[in-house]
């Protein structure tokens, strides 16, 4: 809807304001509006200036670790995306807004920082935090075994005191959890507990070298075996991808922004129930629609010739 107003200087009508014109456009903008109880945080995977095959493979594997509908993978190079530099995040913020993603991973490769991943999040259409990691010892997922897991909601295991004490490790834990946990659900099928993402600090490689902070990132399938009790016995199978990540640059969220962003909403407030839409285990989301009773007489069926009405001979 355009607002038309008289400009006192010109004495002519001019258009000054734009809003969504169609109902569809309105619905779209409303779907992008801030929510009291938020929907799932989507993940955006994209490339920086230059990439290596390893970085490309890593991003593809990360994509497979998220639900297909909750992840966007942009496969073009982005000259302008250098999030740690001033003004290098504008394009990233734009793309996150466009794909409605709250988390992102930027993959790049340079001589100085080979096989580079930048994990980060967006809050209020601005980059919230950044964490740069180098990929080492990357191994792709084993396709035949990866097929066995299907749950969009993985388990997470973080072992080590560093995840409680070290700022970088803490940030990694937070960003990994945020990027890969998927939907917040009220209930879960126990069969869906079928994979775990494991993170643990690794001993620095090489002697005499300055101790690099590194993390082992592993992805296991959970096999629930009979144990004779109610609780099954857990067996893990390394399905990949697996990689070692070493810490590079990082930027934590500003304190005031963090305070605002990590605010807890009233737990009593739940998302408004959508009418006539329900979730079904087998069928997924099911919608109920109302159809007008069909008028059988009006249906244009093929009529047999014999039934054709003819003028009656007098």
């Amino acid at each position, binding site marked *: *809807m355009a*607002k038309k107003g008289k400009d006192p*200087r*010109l*004495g*002519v009508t*001019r258009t*000054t304001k*734009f*809003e*969504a014109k169609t109902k569809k456009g*309105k619905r779209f*903008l*409303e779907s992008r*509006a*801030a929510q009291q109880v*938020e929907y799932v*945080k989507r993940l955006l995977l994209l490339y920086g200036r230059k990439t290596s095959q390893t970085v490309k493979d890593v991003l593809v594997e990360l994509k497979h670790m998220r639900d297909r509908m909750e992840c966007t993978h942009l496969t073009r190079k982005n000259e302008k995306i250098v999030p740690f530099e001033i003004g290098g995040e504008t394009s990233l913020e734009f793309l996150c807004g466009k794909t409605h993603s709250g988390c992102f991973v930027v993959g790049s490769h340079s001589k100085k920082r080979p096989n580079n991943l930048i994990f980060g*999040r967006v*809050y209020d259409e601005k980059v919230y935090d950044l964490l740069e990691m180098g990929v080492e010892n990357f191994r792709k997922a084993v396709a035949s075994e990866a097929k066995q897991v299907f749950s969009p*909601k993985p*388990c*997470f*295991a*973080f*072992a080590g005191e560093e*995840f409680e004490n070290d700022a970088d490790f803490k940030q990694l834990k*937070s960003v990994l*959890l*945020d990027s890969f946990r998927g939907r*917040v659900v*009220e*209930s*879960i*099928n*126990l069969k869906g*507990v079928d994979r*775990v993402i*494991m993170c*643990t*600090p690794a*001993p620095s490689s090489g002697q005499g070298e300055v101790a690099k902070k590194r993390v*082992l990132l*592993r992805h*296991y399938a959970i096999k*629930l075996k009979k144990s*004779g*009790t*109610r*609780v*099954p016995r*857990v*067996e*893990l199978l*390394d399905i990949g991808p697996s990689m070692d990540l070493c810490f590079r640059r990082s930027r934590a969220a500003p304190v005031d922004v963090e305070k605002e*962003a*990590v*605010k*807890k909403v009233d737990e009593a407030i739940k998302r408004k129930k959508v009418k006539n839409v329900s979730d079904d*285990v087998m069928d997924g989301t099911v919608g109920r629609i109302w159809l007008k009773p069909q008028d059988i007489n009006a249906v244009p069926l093929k009529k047999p010739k014999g039934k054709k009405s003819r003028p009656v001979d007098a």
Partner: protein
Amino acid sequence: MTTKARASKMVDEAMGASRGAGAGTPSYDESTLEVDEGNLLVCDPSPVDREAFAADPEAKCKAVATSMAQALVKRLFSFPSQPAVSGRTVELPRPKTLLPRFKPIPQPKPLTRWEKFAKEKGIVKRKREKYTFDEHAGEFKRRYGYDRVNDINDVAIIEAKLTDKPGEDPFSRHKKDKRERVRKQEERRLANLKNAAKAGGKKALPATVSLARALPAADDYLSSSGPQRGQKRATKSELLEGAIAASEATASMGKFDKKSKLEGAISKKRGKRQQFAPVLGKGKHAVSAQERDLIEETVRKVISAGSKPILDVGKAVKQIDPRSLRVRKAKTPKKKSKKQREREAGGN
């Protein structure tokens, strides 16, 4: 300790023994682990066994992950469960780990002028049925919208009232009134938006307005402040030119449109480019005064004794194209072909 708990502890111990034999896995006491079931997250805040990791990182990592996953599974299986189509579902508690939101918490919708007034006066919105009985049509119809009750478009005759102005068409009056009501409501809506933006900034506006940022002038509701830093302010003449161009921007390039009032404003400013003095004089004067002065000036230049000769003969000669002076030869008639001659002879 209940039998169930004892049994599970026994299993844990047994597994710990079988697992711990080679790798020296720390037995996972539930109390040291931090479990966030809502996120399916287990954290072990105790330091890792560096030596064991250095010896065989893969095996050690898997062993630690197994025991942590086991602890989580144990916790999940202890929750009350319901049967599902396949397997059983358990209710999860809300996630404990705080993560940043994606967008700020929405502000409560600011009250409109009417809502404020209604609140003050204690006017409560009254719910009305969607369908009402239409006496003309004899059936139930929607109260508002398409195919509604007492739709003026469906009424063939409107009975005249005493208060009616004579000669006025009631149908067009209805149409006019409706248009006026719509216009006024739009004005009210915009005023409410403006007030909301003044009080609470851009975020107080509905998403349909605040998010429509791809389009120009999205912040118009917020302020009437000048241009942004680094942005050139349009001059008056530029604005005028723009306005005129816009007023002419129709399919016919303004040929059939009313002339804009602005055009006068801008044309006044333009100076005369060529000036023509009148040639003919008024009354008995055959030649006008300006024209006479010009002629006199030229004549004086030519005939005055001291003046340089104004005619440069050499230059003047060059101006003449010698080709134009050439006398053309008379054309000799073209010789006719034999056929042509025959045809002419035959025609005669």
